[in-house]
């Protein structure tokens, strides 16, 4: 089973910000094509008068008191940063 014509793997991988190798590209397109083909059966279900469910038990308007809570120290918050200097995260230059 090959990928449906409308699954443009390059376009979707670009949206997802994932660089694919040529091998991954070919393999994922084929595997996701199979998955999408199996999902096609959902189109048989009549959902014309059905409301969507985002959460099984939706809770709305969840508020918290606007008071400061103890948080992480700067050192703790930055401990997992790949690169840091002077309490800042270092990133590649973004403006030429």
């Amino acid at each position, binding site marked *: 089973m090959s990928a449906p014509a409308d699954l443009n793997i390059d376009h979707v991988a670009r949206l997802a910000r994932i*660089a694919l*190798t040529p091998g991954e590209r070919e393999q994922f397109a084929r595997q996701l094509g199979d998955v999408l083909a199996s*999902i096609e059966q959902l189109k048989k279900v009549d959902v014309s008068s059905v409301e969507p469910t985002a959460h099984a038990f939706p809770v709305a308007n969840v508020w918290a008191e606007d008071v400061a809570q103890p948080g992480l120290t700067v050192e703790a918050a930055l401990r997992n940063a790949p690169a840091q200097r002077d309490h800042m995260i270092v990133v590649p230059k973004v403006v030429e």
Partner: protein
Amino acid sequence: MSAELHYKPIAELAALLDAKKISSVELTQAVVARTKALDGRVKAFNSYDEADALAQAAASDARRASGQARGALEGIPVGFKDVIAVTGQPLTASSRMLANFVSPYDATVTTRLKNAGAVCWGRLNLDEFAMGSSTENSAFHTTRNPWDLTCVPGGSSGGSAAALAAGEAIATLGSDTGGSIRQPAALCGVVGLKPTYGLVSRYGLIAFASSLDQIGPFTRTIEDAAIMLGAIAGHDGRDSTSFRADIPDYRTELTKRKGPWRLGIPKEYFGAGLDPEVAAAVEQAIAFYRAQGCEIKEVSLPQTEHGVGVYYIIATAECSSNLSRYDGIRYGHRAKEAKDLLDLYFQSRAEGFGAEVKRRIILGTYVLSSGYYDAYYLRAQKVRTLIRQDFLNAYREVDALLTPTAPTPAFKIGAKADPLAMYLCDIYTIGVNLAGLPGLSLPCGFSRSGLPIGLQIIGQPFKEAELLAIARTYEQAHDWKNRHPSL
């Protein structure tokens, strides 16, 4: 005695600790020794810190000696699926992306377990970011099934199930998005409970699919599951989907509720693809309940065939959003050779994520993308409504549902190379997550080749006390919990 401590349930160990017949240090030493002896073969753990665990145990013994014991888990070593945050411990999600991440804070469940006195034991392996049914998607190693080391333990919480079955922890925590607690519990012959969505806080759980994820315990007995659930359940202001539900004393409730119950058998769960030995074991369990005076009634969940499809749209859509945070900037893996910022995202994610995670992010991005949202995501959410309605309709006539947990016993490592074949492992567990219901798996027999078989009991929303009582009725009349793998 200490040679057997690692296979005793929490309830029994707590009594021994209370009576000062053992100390938490002795118990923790027994679990550490067992882990050191076996985990080279079982590979349930990603990491553990022996000195830290023994220090926690010594602190527990000191509290107990001074009359300041904290709660039901005082001195009990509990293992954590490596997606649940414990301050100062690694938090990897079994991914290269987080291979060096150390958690700066505690998950709410961790805080609650500490408040109950638990010793926070090691980090347990899983399918990367909880995406899989075998732990073969772990970036580090595949966990083995203690009953047959050539078989998978199930997944995604395979490390949590295997560690418990091997006696490398007294209880463990896992997370369940489409069956990731119940299926490995079934395959490893232990109890696994997935609570009602919203009963247990998700704060500090690495997010996979936020509308489906729920933390729950793995234990040797139903009573232990009640103890663990009592410790972790309850409203939390740090999780906006946390529900304000009354939390009963689940352990006391177990002895109060005796049935008989009205139990539904969903006919769609006994069709093609169900292994005959699994079917036979589950049918014997149904016969047991009938003999106890329960009313057994066939029910229909007509949308069952669409569960896997709906799940792989909704779960991947939510994961594509949740995992967008791994960009190589603030934490996690950062590619060394990127030529600019955009390339840093592309390369860090290409290097940090494994194949299944990439596939799911791409599928999720696709079903949410412009022009396809209505056809896939919105439609899936509507079919989700129908799936949920099926269950609610069934509960007009019955108190709970009895089904197999997984279609087959544990399969060989490497046997399901095709993603779609792997997805079908969750065919009986996925509906429970889509409908937000509580479900558990408990041992109900063994295959001829000696592999455990699990019975799934699906309960009504927030009625865990009843679900556990139904399960305990079966457990008390059978001896499966006293069988252990020969390792």
